[in-house]
């Protein structure tokens, strides 16, 4: 049985000796991050099964010499590998200019909650994951003969991250998470439709039901007709599409780095009304069931809940240690390392979970309220291509329904939707009470008006 506490002490001991080595080699200050995440992934692509098992293990080192900062990383956490990272980071300081803004690494000793730890995940075998994915496959295949392909990705992880620096920080957080994504395509005549669904949490994900649920959505879309309309109409975004829109709208605009650099559209909007008065959004780093939750951010500052928009008024930007010091604001615990090999990433300001306070209307009332417009679901194609500086975006939704006289009628062919992310907060007509934990955060369905639809 794995003892997370022993595991944490073990990694923190490695960090401690690495910090001493870095000091001896001439670093004025040093930070070491170790990630050790064990993972089982099973990918099922219709009949093809790919299973793999291994550990993403490595070390990232930031060091400071004078006002110069360097970063380097290495896979593995043997002494030689930790040494490589330290020496390469020191080498980097010889090639950079002074960063006059640099003050210190994280010094605060607070620690947040690490989220629910579900140890069942450790003993769940690759065979069980394969059985679970086969269940999803069978459900989907048996749902309808027009189901053409079923792609499933099930991933179970557990591990520990540990962070220490020469200012005395020595913290760690355990992680368990299980996620399944399923994408299904159905074909009739020459029409192909695709949709997806997922399950996520901190424990063993529920395999039952996902295949049916996604298959049903996909098959329905085969009856899609052209919308034959270009212009503005009300759009009901479901939980997922609302999340994707808000994530894009907040990603750059509330990011402390963008604010400091003058690239945020909301740079001078703190305490200004930027959205409708019934809009409340928080950045939540402490949702117990969210796989993203950790006790600390990726440079060792306590994770927390930060109000972003209250009653339509912008309240806070999000910061890491470095940019909070430049901006003279408090650190909000939003430093994140984000890479395939996580230890290779330099911490960057990233929202934790974006959570919108639910409104009062249920889903049916939202559809009534749209009256004449469309409902879009699932996935907005091209959201990441939005211009985060100007806010202009143009996306394609291929999972939509027409709403006529307050009722959902037929599914529609792909439509493109264009608008401006930063004006969108004021284009909200109503917020649903149907909040759900999506991969972006806890998000309800929302009606927007004023976007241009072409389809």
């Amino acid at each position, binding site marked *: 049985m794995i003892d997370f506490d022993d595991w944490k002490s073990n990694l923190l001991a490695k960090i401690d000796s690495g910090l001493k080595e870095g000091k001896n080699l001439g670093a004025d200050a040093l930070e070491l991050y170790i990630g050790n995440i064990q993972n089982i992934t099973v990918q099922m692509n219709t009949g093809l099964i790919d299973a793999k098992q291994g550990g993403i293990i490595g070390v990232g080192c930031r060091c400071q010499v004078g006002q110069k900062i360097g970063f380097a990383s290495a896979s593995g956490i043997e002494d030689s*590998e930790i040494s490589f990272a330290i020496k390469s980071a020191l080498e980097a300081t010889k*090639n950079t200019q002074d960063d006059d803004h640099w003050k210190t690494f994280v010094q605060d000793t607070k620690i947040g909650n690490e989220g629910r730890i579900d140890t069942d995940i450790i003993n769940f075998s690759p065979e069980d994951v394969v059985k679970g994915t086969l269940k999803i496959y069978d459900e989907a295949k048996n749902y309808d003969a027009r189901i053409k392909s079923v792609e499933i990705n099930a991933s179970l992880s557990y591990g520990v991250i540990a962070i220490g620096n020469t200012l005395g920080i020595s913290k760690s957080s355990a992680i368990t998470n299980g996620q399944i994504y399923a994408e299904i395509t159905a074909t009739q005549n020459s029409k192909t439709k695709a949709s997806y669904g997922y399950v996520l949490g901190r424990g063993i994900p529920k395999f039952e039901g996902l295949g049916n649920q996604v298959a049903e959505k996909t098959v329905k879309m085969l009856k899609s007709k052209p919308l034959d309309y270009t212009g503005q109409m009300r759009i009901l975004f479901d939980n997922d599409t609302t999340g994707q829109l808000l994530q894009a709208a907040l990603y750059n605009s509330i990011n402390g780095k963008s604010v400091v*650099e003058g690239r945020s559209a909301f740079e001078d909007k703190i305490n200004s009304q930027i959205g409708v008065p019934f809009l409340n959004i928080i950045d939540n780093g402490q949702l117990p069931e969210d796989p993203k939750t950790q006790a600390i951010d990726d440079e060792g500052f306590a994770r927390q809940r930060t109000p972003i928009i209250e009653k339509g008024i912008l309240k806070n930007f999000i910061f890491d240690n470095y940019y909070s010091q430049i901006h003279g604001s408090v650190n909000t615990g939003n430093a994140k390392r984000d890479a395939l090999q996580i230890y290779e990433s330099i911490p960057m300001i990233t929202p934790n979970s974006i959570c919108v306070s639910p409104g009062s209307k249920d889903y049916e009332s939202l559809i009534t309220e749209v009256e004449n417009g469309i409902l879009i679901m699932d996935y907005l194609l091209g959201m990441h*291509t939005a211009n985060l500086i100007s806010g202009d975006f143009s996306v394609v939704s291929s999972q939509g329904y027409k709403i006529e006289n307050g009722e959902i009628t037929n599914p529609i062919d792909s439509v493109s939707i264009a608008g401006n992310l930063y004006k969108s907060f004021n284009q909200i007509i109503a917020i649903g009470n149907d909040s759900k934990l999506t991969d972006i955060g806890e998000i309800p369905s929302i009606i927007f008006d004023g976007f241009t639809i072409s389809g």
Partner: protein
Amino acid sequence: MFDKMQTLIQKAESLGADFVDARYDSTTLKTVIKENGIITQFKTSKRSGIGFNVYYQGATAYSFSADLNSDVLESTILKALKIAKAIAPSVLIRSEIDRKDPIEVQLSHDLKEPPWLIDIESKLELIDRMESSAKEYGENINSLNLLLGEMYGEKIFTNSEGTKINWKPNLFDIRCRVVSKFNGNLVTGFDGRGGSVGLEAFKNDGLTPEDFGKNAALRAKEKGKAKRAPAGEFRALIENLLGGVLAHESFGHLTEADLLLSKGSPLHDKLNQKLGSDVVSIIDEGVLNRSNLVFPYFLPYDDQGIKTLKTILIEDGIYKGFLNSRTTAKALGGELTGNSRAVDFTFAPIPRMKNTYFGPGDLNSEEEALEVLHKGIYAIQSAGGQVEGSGDFLFNANRAYWIENGEIQYPLRDVSLTGNILDFITRIENATKEIKIVAPFFGGCGKSGQSPLTVGLGGPKLVVNNVRFGGESN
């Protein structure tokens, strides 16, 4: 290393494995980012480890380790065997390969100035020169970003057949991004280039750091006067690299044999059918000759030890070929094209692209292409895009112009084009003779969680009828 890997392979075989691929990948990545005069990132990452792909009675499983200690490696390979044995009874499509004769290959590079052997000061000077040039030509510069990316390393491959392959992947890229502010609006301009090239490539006309800095600055400046892009269907001239993104993202992925095998690709039953207009050809190739216009990724062997081929995906509008791994070639037939690739040792290889590009047409120049276009939108450089399994796509062009009477009238702000690739390729009317290919360090291809994988892409300029543009909101 070969001996160590072979010992492990034999151990797994003695316990029942039908076949084993073993791969040692070691890469060092360097990234330098200079923002507004300060190097904000100077980063070195070393990633080394071994992965094993074990085949057992129609099942395969993969395991990997960053720890190269012999005992750890033995338990790693046995883990893969254990998983393969466990899933064998549930396999619906068998993963098998046809045995072939072993090969032994050791490859060196042919670069004059291999970037990884050049001192860092000389490389940093390249981005400083881009910076000075951008400052000289730019107007109302709000922020100036310079990037340098470098990858080099070693790949060692061996398998149950006794094949031994050792080669050195490499990539070098510099680029400049200028953000200018006009009338309260922020606009961006880019230029830069990457590929498996030596530093000598950046000494030629149009490819110097000065050129990149100047172009990025002038493009941002020009966008200050850009007009709103219209929405609707227009004739379009698609510039080389934007066309390359279409060839890769929307068509290339549909020809990856795992998607054909699972029938997830709309092309799974269309081999030898006429899909595009007569002028359409699309090619996927591992090793191309370098030139001022061609900055390919050098990929001589794939991650299953197969020599990469020049694979014709479409010729004269007819869908002719697809991208195989050894297992898909066994299941579907077709050539071993050398397309089985993994991002690093933590992943099993899957069918992926190499350098993917549209073939040439017969237009002699940009001017001639604009004349043929006559009226419409000239869309240049991709600013990102996305596709769905059905071939639906959305791409943003970083630059665009409104064309009338075969002449550029005025620049447009960011435009997006949407459509379905299978429809799009029927509308291609002609293409230029000249082909441009790049293999960026920044960005790359993503599939099944494996991202970014270095690929090359490009082609000629394409004249296309009735392309749907998304336009902007009011």
